[in-house]
Every structure is written in C-alpha cells, then in structure tokens.
C-alpha cells in the first residue's frame, strides 16, 4: 500500500513545484545594483536653460528616482499614484525622462539641441496635464544613464538613501499598496539612520 503512494507523493511534489513557478513574475529580476552606490550622471533638467542635475545633489536625503516617458502607457497608470504620494509625503521624487524621443520618431535624427528642446516641450505639456510629482526631471535622451541603472522597462522606481546607495528597485507601475507596504516602511527606516 505504501509503495503505491510513492508516485503520488512525487507527483504532488512536482505539482507544488510547478505551481510556485507559475505564480512567480518572470519580470522580477533581482537587480545587482541594490546596496551599491547609485551610478553617477550629469544630465540636463526639464527646465529650459543649462540647468543640470547629478545624484550628488541629493546627498543627505532619502529620495526616489522614477523612470518615465510620455510615450509610456504604464506610466500614465502610475502617475496619479505618484502625484498623490508627493502631495502627502515630503519625499523628493526625481524623474528620469527615458528616451523621450524614440527611434521611429521623425525627430530622432535631429541634432542634440533640437531633440532636447522637443523632449522638454513634450514632457512639460504632459506634466502640466497629468500633474507633476517631481522636484526635477532629468533628460536621458539616448538612454545611456538608463543602461547604467539597468533599466529595461519603463516605469522603474529606485529608492536611494542618504549616502547615495540604491536600496530598492521596482520594475513596473508603482501601486498604492506597494508604496504603503514596502516603500514607505523602507523610507522611514532609512530616514532614521
């Protein structure tokens, strides 16, 4: 009798194994950047002129880096959540405008200055319409800063601590539940230290 049960037990084990595998999100890939200093960059900001931003400017503060673009559909879904969050909490969110001008865009081939101008205009219009949760947005036109941060899907959100170390990364649209259960507790913990 007991011998008959062995295949059944083995089969159940396999089922559990596969069921867990099905539930997992294949897009959730652990980032090797967690616990490492946020990669350095200096980029033009969304405001006109020669204003630039660098992560060093945020030294001593806990902040969020949110990767977005006006062409990104999931960002539109995420945006109201960020706007509500920024009104409620005094946590600086920096936007990273990722490859605003896509290769299929006629403006893609334009000289850098023109591209920057077009990207700024588009992003400003978009933020005016949907609200602006960012203290500043930086323009990563060619996506190379994105590569340094391991960006592979927009939107992405990073939590960076006072010392400039990346503590958390989320790929996909941030939800109120994620903010409440994961990001806010982490931030208050980081703010204590």
């Amino acid at each position, binding site marked *: 009798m007991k011998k008959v049960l062995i295949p059944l037990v083995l089969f159940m084990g396999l089922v559990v194994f596969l069921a867990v595998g099905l539930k997992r999100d*294949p*897009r959730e*890939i*652990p*980032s*090797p*950047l967690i616990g490492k200093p946020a990669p350095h960059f200096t980029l033009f900001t969304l405001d006109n002129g020669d204003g630039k931003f660098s992560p060093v400017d945020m030294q001593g503060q806990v902040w969020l880096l949110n990767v977005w673009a006006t062409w990104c559909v999931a960002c539109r879904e995420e945006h109201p959540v960020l706007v509500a969050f920024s009104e409620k909490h005094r946590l600086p969110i920096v936007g990273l405008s990722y*490859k605003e001008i*896509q*290769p299929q865009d006629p403006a893609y081939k334009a000289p850098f200055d023109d591209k920057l101008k077009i990207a700024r205009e588009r992003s400003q219009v978009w933020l005016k319409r949907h609200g602006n949760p960012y203290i500043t947005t930086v323009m990563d036109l060619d*996506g*190379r800063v994105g*590569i*340094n*941060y*391991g960006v*592979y*899907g927009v939107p992405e959100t990073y939590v960076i601590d006072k010392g400039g170390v990346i503590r958390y990364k989320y790929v996909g649209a941030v939800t109120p539940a994620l903010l409440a259960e994961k990001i806010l507790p982490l931030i208050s913990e980081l703010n204590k230290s």
Partner: protein
Amino acid sequence: MKRLILKTVLTLSMVLMASVSTAREAMPMAQDPQLEARVEVLSQELRCMVCQNESLASSRAELADDLRNEVRELIRSGKSDQEVKDFLVARYGDFVLYRPEVKPLTWVLWFGPFVLLGVAAIFLGVYLRQRRALASPVALSDDERERVKQLLKG
C-alpha cells in the same frame, strides 16, 4: 491590355519591395567587420532583458539595439569580452548572461541534471538486481533437458 496590367503589377511590386527593404536602417556593418564579428558573437551570449527568451543578437527590441551599440562602444574602447560581460552583469545581473557562470549559486542549475541522472541510474541498477534475484534460475530436470535437446534439434 493584359500587358499593361502585368506592367502595373510588376511596377507596384517593385515599389513595394523597395519600400520594405528601406524600412529598417542598415547597421554600419562595413566599417569594421572584425569588430562586428565580435559584437555578433558576444551578443549571442547575452540576453535581451525585454523579451527574455531571445539573445541580444536575435532580438529586435529597442533596448537590445541600445545594448548592442553599448557592446560595440565598449569593444571599440579596448575592453575584453569578459570585461564587456562584467559591465552588463554589474547593471542587469547574471540574468543577462545566456550561459550562467559556474559558481556555488548556479551549481544546482549546472550539475542538478547529472545528479538526477546518476540517482536514477542507481535506482535502476538496484531495481534490476532485485528482479534478477526474484527470477532465480531453476535447475532443469532430466526430462526437461531431454525436451530441450529435442526442440533444439528441430
């Protein structure tokens, strides 16, 4: 009339084909074939993070294009293949490698199947030995021996 239709169809198809062939921008291949060959080999070993089950070489995703360009730039600046891989692993994690490195964390992945095969072989051996013990040879009686002889003679 027929010839005119044929002509129109031919012209139209030529126009269409021409537009198809210009739809995608050609890669700057000719510039340095040796460099391109290295980019090609390397990008076959790197995963496209967006499509996940395609290599950088075969993927048409935009990020794959960007990363191929990045690989090209790194090689041009004199980086070795290993340094290029390390660069990408530092940003995207081990997942970016199509062939995961052999290290304690990936031992199960690399050697698990062989261990399973070994375990299965041991089970099979034990099982076969038990069966052989069950069917122990019985000595033939004289009558039976006689019958066997008859049968073999045919």
